[in-house]
């Protein structure tokens, strides 16, 4: 685990609340705006940043993130530029962990060794690559762990007790529990079911468990955060960005402040989570 990630989870746990993980798509709708969004996230209360790498064929994503990827690619975003976003951010913030999230092909084409070197240099702490299950660990997971970059794996409702050890084996940083079988941005299932699933995973691992897919409001964040070590919010932020754009998809004066306001609200939600659990 990178020191930065470990420290952030430990510090937040010491505050007695769950971690707020926020996702946005790098380059959505353009490089400069997404850099401004990235800088605004920790100031609004985000503890960990998931930086989306756009891909032309995002098979596990719902319409909101698909469109964000299309806007970003249309705006000229590339993997080189996404790494550049991280590097610029790291120049101003040395403490907020950055996790790159996306699909394997752009990394494969970039070259795995070159990618890991450049990611480390840009201050990346972890990777989430949706289409690399444990069966494909030799591709990127093992090389990343050797270079001390976390490989964060998704566990899902279909990951049963028989399979869970295999999924957790080379996972580091945290475990990302996908709250339902489905694509990003679907409806959130019953928080009590999620609490059970989180407990099941925690009985197999010491790693923190963060829950995502379907968390949209401060109330969701509070409810999920009552049992999980962290809450991941993605589609809600992406939707907030989309709703602020002009008809041609350009950023407006409302784009960055809109994200800030949403994340501040979510941050209030996670800060109320353990209070609620204690009630």
């Amino acid at each position, binding site marked *: 685990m990178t020191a930065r990630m470990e420290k952030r989870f430990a510090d937040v746990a010491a505050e007695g609340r769950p971690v707020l993980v926020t996702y946005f798509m790098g380059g959505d709708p353009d490089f400069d705006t997404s850099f401004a969004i990235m800088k605004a996230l920790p100031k609004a209360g985000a503890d960990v940043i998931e930086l989306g790498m*756009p*891909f*032309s*064929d*995002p*098979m*596990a*994503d*719902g319409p909101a993130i*698909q469109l964000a990827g299309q806007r970003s*690619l249309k705006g000229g975003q*590339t*993997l*080189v530029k996404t790494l550049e976003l991280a590097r610029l951010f790291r120049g101003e913030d040395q403490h907020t962990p950055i996790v790159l999230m996306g*699909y*394997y*092909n*752009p*990394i*494969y*084409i*970039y070259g795995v060794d070159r990618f890991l070197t450049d990611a480390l240099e840009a201050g990346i702490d972890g990777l989430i690559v*949706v*289409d*690399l*299950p*444990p*069966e*494909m660990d030799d591709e990127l997971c093992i090389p990343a762990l050797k270079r001390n970059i976390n490989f964060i*794996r*998704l*566990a*899902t*409702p*279909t*990951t*049963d007790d028989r*399979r869970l050890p295999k*999924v957790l084996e080379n996972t580091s940083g945290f475990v990302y529990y*996908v709250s339902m*079988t*489905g*694509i990003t941005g*679907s409806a959130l299932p019953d928080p009590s079911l999620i609490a059970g699933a989180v407990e099941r995973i925690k009985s197999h691992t010491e790693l923190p468990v963060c829950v995502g897919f379907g968390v949209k409001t401060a109330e969701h964040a509070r409810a999920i955060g009552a049992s999980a070590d962290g809450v991941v919010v993605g589609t809600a932020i992406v939707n907030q960005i989309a709703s602020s754009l002009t008809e041609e998809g350009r950023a407006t004066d409302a784009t960055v402040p809109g994200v800030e306001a949403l994340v501040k609200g979510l941050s209030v939600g996670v800060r109320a989570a353990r209070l609620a659990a204690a009630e």
Partner: protein
Amino acid sequence: MNEAPKLNSFKAGPDEEGRFGIFGGRFVAETLMPLILDLQDEWNKAKSDPTFKADLEKLGAHYIGRPSPLYFAERLTAELGGAKIYFKREELNHTGSHKINNCIGQILLAKRMGKTRIIAETGAGQHGVASATVAARFGLPCVVYMGATDVERQAPNVFRMKLLGAEVKPVTAGSGTLKDAMNEALRDWVTNVDSTYYLIGTAAGPHPYPEMVRDFQSVIGQEAKEQILAAEGRLPDLVIAAVGGGSNAIGIFHPFLDDEGVKIVGVEAGGKGLDGDEHCASITAGSPGVLHGNRTYLLQDGDGQIKEGHSISAGLDYPGIGPEHAWLNDVGRVEYVPIMDHEALEAFQTLTRLEGIIPALEPSHALAEVIKRAPKMGKDEIILMNLSGRGDKDIFTVGKILGMGQ
């Protein structure tokens, strides 16, 4: 190539991880992994189950109409003045193409697995029709994802699917063709894993699909081999098939892979030419990458973003190719060549007029390559071509291009 299969065979792949050399594999979201492993188990059991084999043969004979004939194209042979040309007539199958071979096999598996809902992707609509057909035959609801562009240019097949009781969902993402339909089918599958069986139509996708689809389609090559031996007393000199994802091609190629004297050629869609982006020649003009669950040759840019292909034929309009084809190319066993839209269109008309067979635009690509090669071969040589589908679905597209008004 690391870990090439036994040196004395081109038929040993894939390995246990689903790899053909560096190609293939299982690049899918975790949600789907347990399901894919279940499917693999069930497929392994089915392969050695005599009941499964018997069901498959019975439905093959009485529902599909197997064996499909091997036809000597006498007038085309005379016209070209070279090698003798034989067609494996998969276009005479029930539903009009080779696609039904695979659909029957997979729906039997779906039933064994207790699945209650079928989803499929389709390009030209041939696989969609075949899926809707077997779903009707086995009483399962069926949803077919089809690119919005394809819904428009393959209207007759859309009607057929609807009449068969399937729900056709047009996909508008991307350029609204086969690749986008496959993305949407994968999203549906991830959401409905418990109930749903994803009936993939081509020899691509995560392991075990490429192997499974190949095995269901290999009946084409097995029959053709027996039939040509009966007709000519020897194997063909050249086997040719069109390649989109590559299921009809791998089906006819596979039984011939270890026959040294048999040259094998796969024909890709050259579209409007390989110089620009308007083609679908993944092997001839693409590079290795990872999409839709497997590593294979893809049309992509320098950032690893997948490009939209183009072909006059909706069935070849896919920016990738089955992983076994990628491997057969790299080890040099099969040669892959492009054929342009206009060449396929000419071949379509030639066959229609000379033999009274209206071919689909997909095998018209293979036919165009036959037309190029046959005159250069001796009269004692033999070409075997997979006539994988009939052209009824394409008559409006072709009529429009040729300016044949209403």
